[in-house]
């Protein structure tokens, strides 16, 4: 399965990417996607972030299912 991953703010700057595509096995979870991202972008290792799957907060255990978009959400600081 394919999923788009979005990177924002400091994560975008650290990786040099705002959007990457991952190819993962069927039944993959957010955690599987994270493992692949860490392999590709070691700069993500010491970063703090949450996950969002199709615009809703998710956890590493959440199945990607038919989701189209995974986002790494660094600590928010709007307002």
């Amino acid at each position, binding site marked *: 399965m394919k999923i788009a991953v979005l990177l924002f*703010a*400091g994560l975008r700057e650290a990786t040099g990417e705002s959007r990457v595509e991952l190819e993962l096995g069927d039944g993959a979870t957010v955690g599987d996607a994270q493992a692949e991202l860490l392999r590709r972008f070691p700069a993500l290792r010491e970063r*703090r972030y949450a996950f969002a799957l199709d615009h*809703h*907060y998710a956890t590493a255990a959440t199945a990607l299912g038919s989701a189209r978009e995974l986002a790494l*959400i660094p600590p928010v*600081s*709007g307002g």
Partner: protein
Amino acid sequence: MTSSRCELRFTSACIALEPLLEEVRSDGDGAVVSFLGVVRDHARGKRVRFLDYEAYPPMAEVQMRLLFEEARERFGLERALVVHRTGRLQIGEASVAIAVATPHRAAGFEACRHLIDRLKETVPIWKKETYEDGSAWIGERS
């Protein structure tokens, strides 16, 4: 008559509060409460030169919708406009404006406070501060 409408908008242009106050109000409202967040010239003991804001709008929309729902359950809020800037902001410019309209003032004050407090916790918007000697995305290293 009252109607129900809560909305989040992003803009790269300066925010004008006055039009929002009129837009949010309906004839059944006795109170319009607003909040303006503005760019301060210092933070974390440093002089701030300017800010850059970045957002993830489709998710911000979803998360803000949950907060509007929360405010409706707690305070009966039906009418609110939230406008957030993106891009580069200079000192003194408004980064966010919130306008809520309610039949009575108590619910308005509470709902407005609730929306800004919760926005800062869950809505995917990021602020980068640039100082005389560098810059930092806020919240990242803490």
